[in-house]
């Protein structure tokens, strides 16, 4: 017999951020019950406090590299790998959660469901817990559980306001596609378990290194598992839910799904591929993968398909939210290329990309939300001449869109630059050219919005749109980094460089 609760106490020092999130989840639920129908406006501030405390614990953890919840019977591998790579993504998730809570405070859509704010913030915390476990779990069982936790919360959040038709529809489509994807992934996991006899990624890697495996079954299981990951990062051909859900969900949640959920999916995919299939890492930082599956061609194919589909579909969109959904699919395609390089440099490019993508994409959604708060629509036609009504918002949106295109001097340029450097260094010139052409295509639909805002005369003379001090501060908090990182990017590059290490590799 082992000492009671030994496994909890042994690993609790590595799980402080997750424990903090769980405790604040409980606090939010309780406070909501105690407060009753009134005084719900304290909830977002409790949520913010919880996020800041969680962020503190994550920063405390930087530099640690250890297994939490160790399984002694399978070679001391653990369920959770705590490392700088995971902590970097946890910071991205927490940062975006802070912004989402701030968004929700000023979102009209969320304000309308005032009596359910307790559930709203609790679900956001539940989703965050799932994402933080996704980025650090090293065991397929925990991966499946955390993906499901994220999915279940986001199904509800996508249809949270439920008054509007498109809201409920988004939620139904999301749960049907999501349930299918995770079911298929589970079947893949079960086959992989049958081949390996274990679900721990590190243990699977040890078995693969020894060369004992069933090639065809392994390939099938990996393709099935990729369905689940591809769904989360909305890679083609598993992207079809994205436009509908992004358009239908409340804007704050759309923004959250496009950043945090995608970041968690990417971290999971990188960890899965690197930990499971790596053989050695060369001196120059290039990974030597086990020759079981040709991941490189597979990922290159998927990413080119993803970015091309995303960009070309975005060309024809009249709804700005839907256009941003397609653009986020395209961005997932660019970032997949960073993984397809299979080098530390490529991962570094993804890390830089995500940090910058966080600011520019959240910023774009925030402006769309503020304008929708006033004019009640996200149709591009409604944006005609909006620059005359609200110069600050129009200019900010222009900056965010230019940054999403990747033009200097914005931070988006730096993000793309590092990605292309990684591609060229790996001698993947042809792929780099395709990505570059895609960027050119994306220029068209981003600029189209600018044309509507600045050059088209408004059909009706509307009143001026003004925004409050608090919203302006939040907006500047996303606008300033775009220029700051565009000109002075050494700190984030160094930060990303220090965060590429996965536990054990």
């Amino acid at each position: 017999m082992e000492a009671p609760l030994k496994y909890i106490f042994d690993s609790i020092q590595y799980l402080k951020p997750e424990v903090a999130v769980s405790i604040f989840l409980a606090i939010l639920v309780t406070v909501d019950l105690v407060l009753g129908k009134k005084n719900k406006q304290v909830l977002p501030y409790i949520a913010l406090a919880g996020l800041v405390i969680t962020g503190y614990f994550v920063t405390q953890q930087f530099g640690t590299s250890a297994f939490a919840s160790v399984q002694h019977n399978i070679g001391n591998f653990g369920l959770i790998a705590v490392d700088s790579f995971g902590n970097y993504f946890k910071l991205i998730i927490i940062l975006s959660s802070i912004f989402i809570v701030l968004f929700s405070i000023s979102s009209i859509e969320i304000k309308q469901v005032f009596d359910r704010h307790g559930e709203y913030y609790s679900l956001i915390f539940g989703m965050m817990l799932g994402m933080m476990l996704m980025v650090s779990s090293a065991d397929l069982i925990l991966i499946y559980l955390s993906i499901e936790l994220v999915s279940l919360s986001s199904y509800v959040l996508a249809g949270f306001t439920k008054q509007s038709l498109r809201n409920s529809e988004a939620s139904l489509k999301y749960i049907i596609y999501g349930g299918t994807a995770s079911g298929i992934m589970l079947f893949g996991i079960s086959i992989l378990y049958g081949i390996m006899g274990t679900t721990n990624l590190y243990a699977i890697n040890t078995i693969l290194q020894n060369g004992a495996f069933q090639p065809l079954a392994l390939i099938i299981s990996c393709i099935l598992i990729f369905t689940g990951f591809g769904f989360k990062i909305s890679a083609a051909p598993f992207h079809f839910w994205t436009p509908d859900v992004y358009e239908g969900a409340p804007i704050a949640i759309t923004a959250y799904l496009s950043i945090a959920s995608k970041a968690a999916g990417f971290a999971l995919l990188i960890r899965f591929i690197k930990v499971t299939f790596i053989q050695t890492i060369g001196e120059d930082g290039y990974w030597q993968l086990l020759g079981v599956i040709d991941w490189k061609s597979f990922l290159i194919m998927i990413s080119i398909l993803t970015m091309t589909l995303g960009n070309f579909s975005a060309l024809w969109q009249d709804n700005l939210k839907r256009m941003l959904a397609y653009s986020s699919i395209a961005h997932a395609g660019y970032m997949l290329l960073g993984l397809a390089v299979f080098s530390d440099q490529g991962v570094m490019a993804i890390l830089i990309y995500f940090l910058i993508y966080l600011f520019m994409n959240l910023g774009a959604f925030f402006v769309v939300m503020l304008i929708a708060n006033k004019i009640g629509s996200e149709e591009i036609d409604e944006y005609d001449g909006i620059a005359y009504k609200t110069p600050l918002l129009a200019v900010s949106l222009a900056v965010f869109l230019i940054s999403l295109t990747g033009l200097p001097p914005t931070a988006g340029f730096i993000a793309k630059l590092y990605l292309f450097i990684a591609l060229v260094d790996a001698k993947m010139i042809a792929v780099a050219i395709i990505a570059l052409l895609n960027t050119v295509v994306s220029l068209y639909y981003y600029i189209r919005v600018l044309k509507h805002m600045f050059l088209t005369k408004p059909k009706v003379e509307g009143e001026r749109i003004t925004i409050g001090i608090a919203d302006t501060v939040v907006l500047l908090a996303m606008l300033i980094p775009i220029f700051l990182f565009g000109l002075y990017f050494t700190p984030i590059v160094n930060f990303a460089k220090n965060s590429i290490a996965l536990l054990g590799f």
Partner: protein
Amino acid sequence: MTLYDIIFYLFALVTISSAYLVVTVRNIVYSAFSLLFTLFGIAGLYALLGADFVAIVQLIVYVGGILILMIFGVMLTNKITNVQIKTGVFQILPATIGVGIFGGFLLAVLLNTNWLNLNVKDSPATTFQLGQLLMNEWVLPFELLGIVLLIALLGAASIARK
């Protein structure tokens, strides 16, 4: 051909044929009741595999819980008195071909793979060992499951209430 084999073929037959009915019958209530037999057959397969606790949980949670939810879903979203209860189907032929190819391929690969196929003795009652695992090595996923259920409760209540 032992008794074990006969019981296996019986349960497998019940499972597969009722699963076929679940996805093909046009009457939605029949379909939900076929699901009952599928889930029951699967519980029998678990019992044959020596997983007694899983078999019981399958009966209690799936048959007793999820299926009831499903039937409630069917009842609440269809006017039973109406004839409207039949559901339409679409893309039958392409779906049959596509799923047939995919399923056949999957089946061919799985059945031709050389799995570890030991003839192990049936384990004794598994409840104790599963409890040990849940409280020791797997306590973290177990706790996480509690949070998942809390989230499901919150979410379902917040969506379903007026």
